[in-house]
């Protein structure tokens, strides 16, 4: 058990290092950021001075070594566009993304699970088929296109909701968030729905599959024979049993929600981390790109590691075959 844990953690560290090299070399290959940020009329002397200032005249290996040393000192570099430390930049944008993700998960769970339960309870009803068709749409139609339709419908045509941006913030119990103001909610609701659709489709399918399976099991038959009302069987017996895979998938989806936030934040001009990375790619803001990518890699490696270790704890077969 212990040797399996150590092997997996060592593997994870190797992966993070390998990915950091790939990211660094890849971003290096994009081009010289000085050419983008500098005034085209600047003299060669100013240009060379700037290049030296950012250490871009050094060989790639030296640049990578400097970068690594700085990372371990907690310094991810300074954004070339905003001219503030990347760490501060990312943390200043993070609350907005967190708000968006939180509301979208709430919507996905709040709509997806009841809809999935219904679709699994009466799988042949028209309503159930409609729910399943909607879940297919949530899966296959590109997020940005649905976001655009939402803006056209609710912002441009009906004028009910603002078309983008984050609303007024308010401070409550020392936490500042736009979720404490009505204006904030009017801004967050459309992007959150947009971001939730994919997860909602997933939740509907998972819950429905679990529900259909559970309806045929002995414990449900016995509960029925006992004379329990269906409502009680579904909510206190079935839901408890099928909630474990749902929670697992929801946890795994956290990472991909962050990725999809890139698209949703761009459509709705939401000032979060996703918008930041798109802007930094378009403006060749190298330190922000490198830091964001390495943070994402670490996040995914961590999620993978935790899942593997938890499964190994639960299922001995995994650690017997997978140690190599």
């Amino acid at each position: 058990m212990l040797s399996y844990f150590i092997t997996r953690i060592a593997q994870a560290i190797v992966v993070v290092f390998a990915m950091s090299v790939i990211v660094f070399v890849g971003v290096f290959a994009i081009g010289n950021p000085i050419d983008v940020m500098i005034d085209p009329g600047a003299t060669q002397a100013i240009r060379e001075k700037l290049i030296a200032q950012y250490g871009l005249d050094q060989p790639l290996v030296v640049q990578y070594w400097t970068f690594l040393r700085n990372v371990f000192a907690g310094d991810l570099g300074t954004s070339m566009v905003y001219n503030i430390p990347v760490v501060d930049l990312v943390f200043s944008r993070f609350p907005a993304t967190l708000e968006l993700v939180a509301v979208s998960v709430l919507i996905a769970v709040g709509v997806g699970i009841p809809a999935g339960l219904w679709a699994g309870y009466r799988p042949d009803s028209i309503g159930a088929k409609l729910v399943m068709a909607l879940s297919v749409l949530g899966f296959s139609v590109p997020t940005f296109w649905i976001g655009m339709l939402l803006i056209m419908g609710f912002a441009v045509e009906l004028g009910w909701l603002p078309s983008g941006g984050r609303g007024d913030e308010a401070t409550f119990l020392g936490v500042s968030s736009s979720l404490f103001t009505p204006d904030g909610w009017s801004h967050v609701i459309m992007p959150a729905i947009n971001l939730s659709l994919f997860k909602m489709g997933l939740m509907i399918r998972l819950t429905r599959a679990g529900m259909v399976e559970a309806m045929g099991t002995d414990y449900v038959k016995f509960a029925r024979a006992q004379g329990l009302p269906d409502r009680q069987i579904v909510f206190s017996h079935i839901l408890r049993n099928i909630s474990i895979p749902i929670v697992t998938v929801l946890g795994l989806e956290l990472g991909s929600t962050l990725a999809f936030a890139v698209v949703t934040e761009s459509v709705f001009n939401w000032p979060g981390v996703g918008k930041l990375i798109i802007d930094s790619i378009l403006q060749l803001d190298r330190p922000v790109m490198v830091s964001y990518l390495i943070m994402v890699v670490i996040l995914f490696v961590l999620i993978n590691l935790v899942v593997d270790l938890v499964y190994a704890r639960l299922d001995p077969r995994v650690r017997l075959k997978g140690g190599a």
Partner: protein
Amino acid sequence: MPEIIAENIAAVPSAPPVETRAERLRNFWSDFRESWVAVGALIVIGVLLFLSFGAPLVSPQDPYDMAMLDWLDAFLRPGTEGSGGYVHLLGTDNAGRDMLSAIFYGLRTSFVIGLSAGALALLVGIAVGLTAAYFGGRIEALLMRIVDLQLSMPAILLALVLVAMLGQGIVQIILALVVAQYAYFARTTHGAAKVERGKDYIEAARSTPLPTHRVLFKHLLPNVLPPLIVVATVQVASAIALEATLSFLGVGLPLTEPSLGSLISNGFKYIHSDRYWLSIYPGLALMLTVVAINLVGDQVRKVLDPRNSR
């Protein structure tokens, strides 16, 4: 005593008749036909393929040809007659481009990217998956760990980063999509090949002096193909959607090489000025394409699922 032998043979439970390729195809089609939604989707795909690859023939204008564009025709409403003397059924965009023609050409770009990315990813995925399953050991552990790690990351993020590194252009986008998507094929191939590898016929083939590549491609590969076909349909749809998303985010194709994504992205700029036709129509075309491919893929999966076989 020939009678006894004949009797004995008759007593042996008859093996299922071996189907010829044509018969298998006919059976597949008769199963596929059962869903009229899927048949409809297949027809839609056929029409879209015809309109896109026949774009130079069917569209009223060549949207690539700057000489044919007239600034005076910009932002014409759908159904207005322009200076070219014909009616712009879906209106024109900010450069006076006929939207209908732009959509046909854009669809062609999207199909080219989706199909070639899907085909290349299929080849790379098969190579990786077969290698891992056939050789096993450390090679398998290494390859499949990379594949698993990639699968845990959303394809959109990977593609975004790759396009940022490789630059804009059709070839770069296809490359990025292949890298982002081959893992789905690799995992499917690996899973199916692992199951097949344990069966007797592979054992038998390996015990003969046949070269490895022959066992791999003539014996193993045909038997792992069905699940790959399903993955391929879904991945073509997802490649088209991914390309559109990348172009929408501004890292995909420029408007001079219109794909559906860059058309929508261009239209998005005018979303507040009541010029809905710039973004709505290319968006509908994209949605129709992606949903139709997915519906067909869904039905193919149902038909090929061994649990459904008679």
